[in-house]
């Protein structure tokens, strides 16, 4: 169980994030939705540990490790895809942790790491030869797949995604959407997905949390929210998602 309690965060905008109490269950995908500037990314960063709340507590229960994916994958442009993918392994390995350079030697990679990389590539449906390339040499959808693979590298228990499907063309988006849900179903991970697109939220989310100007408007199971929207904003957001199908 993931809980936040009396959570407050003062950002630079006119409102502050203020969540009295909220909890989500594990092994499910939770969509956090809201308009631009509603505080959804702030909440995600607090769950990730990138932001320290000004007040209140965050408990991740027995979930220890976290993986993080942002729009376009958040790949480093000066690193090849392989170097990008290796960063979490190298950072965790004390042998390389003190290295001045991000470069690696093929013979320094253990069999376990090589196997893991092959597994991850297979999981996100990418051919192994793509790894030699740089992020700007591949498509947006492929970048996002590498980003997901990198987040999953150390097999985290919690995955946090910020707009993973934004800025993709419709066909790529649809394919990635499908593949991502298959991955989540297969791995049974706890996933938080921030999006402004109700279509995406409804497609992935076991639960929906609607934020507006730093406050939780409604939070609950998918069916519950769809059948009983608490106000006009939620109603309109649901309508923007079109035909509700899971």
């Amino acid at each position, binding site marked *: 169980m993931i809980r936040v309690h009396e959570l407050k965060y003062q950002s630079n905008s006119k409102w502050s994030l203020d969540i009295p109490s909220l909890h989500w269950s594990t092994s499910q995908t939770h969509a956090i939705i809201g308009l631009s500037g509603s505080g959804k990314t702030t909440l995600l960063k607090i769950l990730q540990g990138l932001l320290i709340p000004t007040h209140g507590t965050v408990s991740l229960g027995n979930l220890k490790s976290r993986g993080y994916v942002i729009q376009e994958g958040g790949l480093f442009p000066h690193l090849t895809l392989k170097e990008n993918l290796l960063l979490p392994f190298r*950072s965790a390995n004390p042998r390389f942790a003190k290295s001045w350079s991000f470069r690696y030697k093929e013979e320094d990679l253990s069999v376990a790491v090589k196997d893991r990389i092959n597994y991850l590539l297979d999981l996100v449906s990418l051919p192994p030869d793509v790894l030699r390339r740089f992020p700007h040499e591949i498509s947006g959808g492929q970048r996002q797949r590498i980003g997901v693979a990198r987040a999953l590298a150390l097999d985290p228990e919690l995955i946090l995604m910020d707009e993973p499907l934004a800025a993709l063309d419709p066909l790529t988006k649809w394919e990635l959407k499908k593949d991502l849900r298959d991955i989540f179903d297969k791995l049974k991970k706890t996933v938080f997905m921030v999006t402004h697109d109700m279509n995406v939220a409804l497609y992935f989310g076991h639960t929906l949390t609607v934020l507006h100007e730093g406050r939780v408007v409604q939070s609950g199971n998918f069916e519950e929210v769809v059948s009983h929207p608490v106000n006009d904003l939620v109603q309109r957001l649901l309508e923007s998602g079109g035909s509700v199908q899971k």
Partner: protein
Amino acid sequence: MISVFRFLYCGLLLFSWSAEAQITVGSKMDTEGRILAEIVSQIAETLGETTVIRKHGMGGTGIVYESLKSRFIDLYPEYTGTLWKTVLKKTPTAQEKSLHDELAALGLNLSEPLGFNNTYALALRQEDAQKRNLHRISDLKSNLDLRAGFTPEFLKHPENLSALEKHYGFKLPHIRSLDHGLAYEAVAHSQIDLIDAYSTDGKIKRFGLKVLEDDQHFFPDYQAAFLVRADFPDLYPKTWKAIQKLRGSLSSDAMAGLNARAEIDRIPIPTIAHDFLQKSTSENQLSFVSRYINLELAETTAAHLFLVLVSMTAAIVVGIPLGIFSYLLPKPGKVILALCGVIQTVPSLALLCFMIPWIGIGVLPSLVALFLYSLLPIVRGAYSGLMEVNPRYREVSQAIGLHPRQTLFWILLPLGRGAIWNGICVSAVINVGTATLAAFIGGGGYGTYIVTGLALNDISMILNGAIPAAILALVLHAILRRTMVYPA
């Protein structure tokens, strides 16, 4: 490469002043000072009591005097009037003994006067003098429309111009401050009409100028002699005795003749000095000449590159960590950036002069000054390079668990390398240009041509230094630009 090492070796020699049997002869930038310094250098070498290091043409009175006091040079030619006014800051008295006493109190000693009096004089174009019937300084009273160009030393010292005006009872309304070497050119081309000059100046004849008679005896004596520290006669008794023997050996006319040979006939100063010292029959005249004309372009380039490369390397090694530090700790970082900015605003020549009492003259203070000047663009480059990295990359680094050290070396520095490299490029170009000033304090490099050219009023000599410096800056910039691989 060999010349670089040779230069390094020379630099080391210059700083090992602990070696006893070795004196360093300095001089100001003017031709007369250089000739006198060369004469005394050749005398000392002929005697063989010590070896001689030549630091001729170092700069103005302040630089040379400070260098003598700080033991970076051992003697240099000076004038009694300058010692009174600029060094002792007192009114000269007639007795020579009193000056010796004053200098002894400062731990200094002055050789016997060489014989000529190189006092200040006011000069104007011959034809103007005829046209206006202007022959004496007191005649200036009725010619106040003349445009004057005076050296800063003459202009600023209260006992020079303002005292002269008071003494004669007039005030010149049109006055500009000009370098001595440039003033002759300016008066010859009628850009100014009246200049201050020295009575033994070889250029007065060359430029067809007339010296105004000091009819009310305002200008004090400027007897030339060699200034040393008080311990010099004991340390080098033979050399000192030979210097004392020069007493009265150079009349004003003879000195003006030597000056003219250098400035008008362009005879190398070692040759002039050697000819003057004919009695000491020296067989290896050529070696003197070749020693003086060591301004071979390759060697000068090596010396210049040495200054640039060493100071740049130091600036990069210190500057980039400072830039990183400023980025990581913004509060002390702001102080660092401001300090580097302040250093940049100090005029470079002034910075060089400030350092003489502490580090002396030559290569080392030049390197320190160049290092300080190169710092700001590099620190700023590193700082802004890091600042310009999209903050989301920092977040992602943190989110995938990179240690701050790894974030810095694996992510931020490689991503910010464009601006970092840019700072180094800018710094290198500034450095090549500023390095020409090192010659003013004996640091060598292309500036040697420029300083010598200024002193000898030789424009082609100045260009010999200025053009290679500009080319070097462009080449270095092109190389650095090409080496940089910009982030995708």
